């Protein structure tokens, strides 16, 4: 099956007074129809910039974007706002982190949904309104006929995120990009939102890119995982491979810092020493090397992202497969 979205060597840099910040540095991946791809990494590793750049939402005037983003074989990187209108919402929809700020406080939620429908479809007000009610119902908002007339501040955080998702689904896109959709919500609500996304993925065949720093979220819903560090992809593998045969020491570190029920309570969580490098002048060679406990001579040279343990499990670490298998 050909991928629905192909990202090849995407680079985003920002010219600042201190120099050029390479926020995204050569990211490549494919997204197949119906697949859930998780992009994980700590704050500032470039995952949100990657997501926003896919639909041209990285708009800073000092930004420089190169590389290729293909939607169903059609290049969409570098298109202007007008050309991107058909892509945004219609083909690729987005859900953002903080649903309070992501909805305009001065409009009723129903109007925010119908606004999107009217922007793309020639339908009557009444039809759009009915569609909005139906969408709200489909994402599990009770009493949608009444809720559609309320303002965002009259909703709880979880309900607001459901509104965002309902809005994203309005035009039945093929791809949903969810940028930390559960970060601003409390745990029980997180589970509900993930369940909703999972269900939409299974019922509608919606391909999902979910950005998160929470491996718990990843385990819950992802098919494939992209681990990012300092603007680069360091590991790209299936969910099972990431959790059972992780290959990159950074992934080991992420997994080690996860509290798990299948480990004895006395086991301490490990933490990755140090802090991520500045993206102004990242270390030459492997970017994780300064924090890596397995560092050796070859690490002074940047390893390519390639399969070392066989199959399509890509990673960016010089360690031989035996050492990796042993650790994993």
């Amino acid at each position, binding site marked *: 099956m050909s991928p629905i979205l192909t990202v090849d060597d995407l680079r985003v840099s920002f010219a600042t007074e201190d120099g050029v910040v390479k926020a995204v540095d050569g990211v490549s991946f494919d997204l197949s129809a119906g697949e859930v791809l998780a992009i994980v990494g700590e704050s500032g590793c470039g995952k949100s910039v990657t997501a*926003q750049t896919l639909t041209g939402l990285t708009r800073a005037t000092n930004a420089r974007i190169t590389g290729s983003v293909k939607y169903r074989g059609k290049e969409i990187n570098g298109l202007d706002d007008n050309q991107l209108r058909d892509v*945004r919402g219609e083909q690729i929809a987005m859900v953002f982190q903080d649903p309070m*700020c992501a909805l305009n406080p001065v409009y009723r939620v129903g109007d925010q949904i119908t606004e*999107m429908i009217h922007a793309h479809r020639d339908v009557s007000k009444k039809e759009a309104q009915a569609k909005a009610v139906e969408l709200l119902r489909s994402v599990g908002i009770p009493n949608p006929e009444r809720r559609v007339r309320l303002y965002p501040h009259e909703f709880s955080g979880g309900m607001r995120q459901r509104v965002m998702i309902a809005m994203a689904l309005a035009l039945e896109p093929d791809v949903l990009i969810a940028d930390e959709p559960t970060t601003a919500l409390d745990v029980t609500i997180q589970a509900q939102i993930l369940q909703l996304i999972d269900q939409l993925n299974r019922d509608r065949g919606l391909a999902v890119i979910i950005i998160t720093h929470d491996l718990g979220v990843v385990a819950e819903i992802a098919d494939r995982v992209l681990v990012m560090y300092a603007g680069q992809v360091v590991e790209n593998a299936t969910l099972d491979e990431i959790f059972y045969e992780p290959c990159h020491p950074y992934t080991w570190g992420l997994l080690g810092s996860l509290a798990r029920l299948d480990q004895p309570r006395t086991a301490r969580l490990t933490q990755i020493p140090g802090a991520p490098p500045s993206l102004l002048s990242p270390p030459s060679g492997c970017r994780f090397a300064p924090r890596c406990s397995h560092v050796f001579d070859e690490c002074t040279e940047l390893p390519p992202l390639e399969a070392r343990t066989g199959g399509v499990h890509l990673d960016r670490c010089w360690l031989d497969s035996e050492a990796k298998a042993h650790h994993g």
Partner: protein
Amino acid sequence: MGRFVARRLLGMTGVLFAISVIVFLIFNVIPNSDPAARIAGKNADPALIARVTADLGLDKPLPVQYLTMMKQIFTGELTSYAKDRNVVEQIWEGLPATFSLCIGAAVLWMALAILFGYLSAVHAGKFTDRALTILSLVGISMPVFWLAAMLLYYLTFKVELFPTGSYVPFTESPGEWAYHLILPWFTLAVLFVGIYSRVLRSNMLDVMNEDYVRTARAKGLSERQVRMRHVLRNSMIPVITLFGLDFGQVIGGGAILTETVYNLDGVGLYAGEAIRSLDLPPLMAVVMFGAFFIVLFNTIVDILYAVLDPRIRLGEAAPA
């Protein structure tokens, strides 16, 4: 909503009362402001001054004088000391000119301020923005009396493009009415266009970075829709506040300079005369009139706020 309005009306009464007391007291401590002495003439003998004083009721205690004056204002019987004419009637006669000037100018200044602020924000940092920035700073810096005099000199005496001020009632000739008001409208609007366009520009630049604007783009709206419906709409709220205050202020006699230079027979011109002749009754009435409009438009703005921003609830924690 009902309770809110009732509370604001009560507050308004309080404000008007306080202002009237302050104006009254200030007038009584200004040196050389004794109306009796002024009316009686330069070489009047003390007996004459005493008679005038008694006639005007100025020999009574201050609180009594104050109450009498208030009663006269609200019954419409207040007469000027200097000219012996009914004050309330005179203000009433000045209303058409003042309203014509202020409403026209307000429409002009809001339209231009929104246009300039919008263009400035959308082209932030580029030539259009810089040019509009300079223009608005020039507008803010020009004193009204100077601008009015310059416009009169160049556009009516030198080029004879416009009439020399004075007011033509709308009912007499709408064309002449507008023709005579073009320069005054422009003069009064310039300062506000400058200030408002600056405020709107910075609000818009803030709002452009809001998450919901990103959402609007991600929805596939056109850039125009994003800017008009999401950026501009949300940026207008603080501008509306300013407008409420300023509009109340110019209606209530704040257009005094414009009215004076262009000889528009409005409330401002009347206020100017009253100040020059230190005439308390018209002064008091004009100040009360102005305060009334300022408080009134403040209240309207607060109500409008709740319409513009649904998060604001009038009943509960309305901004005072």
